[in-house]
């Protein structure tokens, strides 16, 4: 798994490339919590290059949703791929996380 972070205004776009499982989820948690600790609480998870996540990845996303929201921000998802969407649906995460077709729309949802 590879993580690339880009800044668009006050929104941090965290792009995940590859698979998120129990071995790689801690890396994702560290990347997301690092942004929140630095005060960048408006986060977009760009999942266009992420083909797989297990429950470990969901726990990492959930922790960051809670932390960012409690600081007045949010974690929103962009370009969720088929198998990742299945996992989000099976867990009911689709009712928790806002999801957008692409990064531009996810960034714009924070209202500039």
């Amino acid at each position, binding site marked *: 798994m590879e993580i690339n972070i880009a800044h668009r205004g006050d929104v941090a776009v965290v792009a995940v490339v590859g*698979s998120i*499982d*129990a*071995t790689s989820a801690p890396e994702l948690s560290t990347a997301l919590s690092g942004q929140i600790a630095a005060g960048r609480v408006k986060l977009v998870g760009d999942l266009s290059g992420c083909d*797989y996540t*297990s*429950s*470990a990845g*969901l*726990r990492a996303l*959930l922790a960051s*949703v*809670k932390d960012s929201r409690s600081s007045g921000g949010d974690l929103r998802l962009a370009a969720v791929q088929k*198998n990742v969407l*299945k*996992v989000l649906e*099976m*867990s*009911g*995460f689709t*009712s*928790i996380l806002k999801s957008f077709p692409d990064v531009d729309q996810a960034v714009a949802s924070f209202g500039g």
Partner: protein
Amino acid sequence: MKVRQHAVFAARLEVTPAIREFVGRACADAGLGDDDRFAFELAADEACTNIVEHGYAGRSGGEIAVEFDADDRVARLTLIDAGRPFDPDEVPRPELGPALLDRPVGGLGVHFIRTTMDEVLYRTDPNGNHLVLTRKLQRRPPARPEKE
């Protein structure tokens, strides 16, 4: 036609991606469609992660035997380990949806196994713990050419 594949892996977290890959390849070799293959990859990943984290719980030197077999209608994944018994039936069903925001998350992996598989059997005998995951296939493998 029945296809069977078998391999033994070290019970370490960093090996779980290789187990997932083995299961995915076994599914592809058996002609399973994408949805069925994903179901087995996810179930194998979650089950093996539980075996490493809860069954062996940090104990080194453990192994996980992985067996996969499929015919035209069903596919079956069997995982055998010698760690502490970890019966998925004893894992409470997680509260899903917005409730996840209010309380610690647990049991999601077992929930995925139950959701993706049609049958989840667990038994412990002197040879180890056996987790047998069965799924009715959505798409039949391509038929073999008929012999004239």
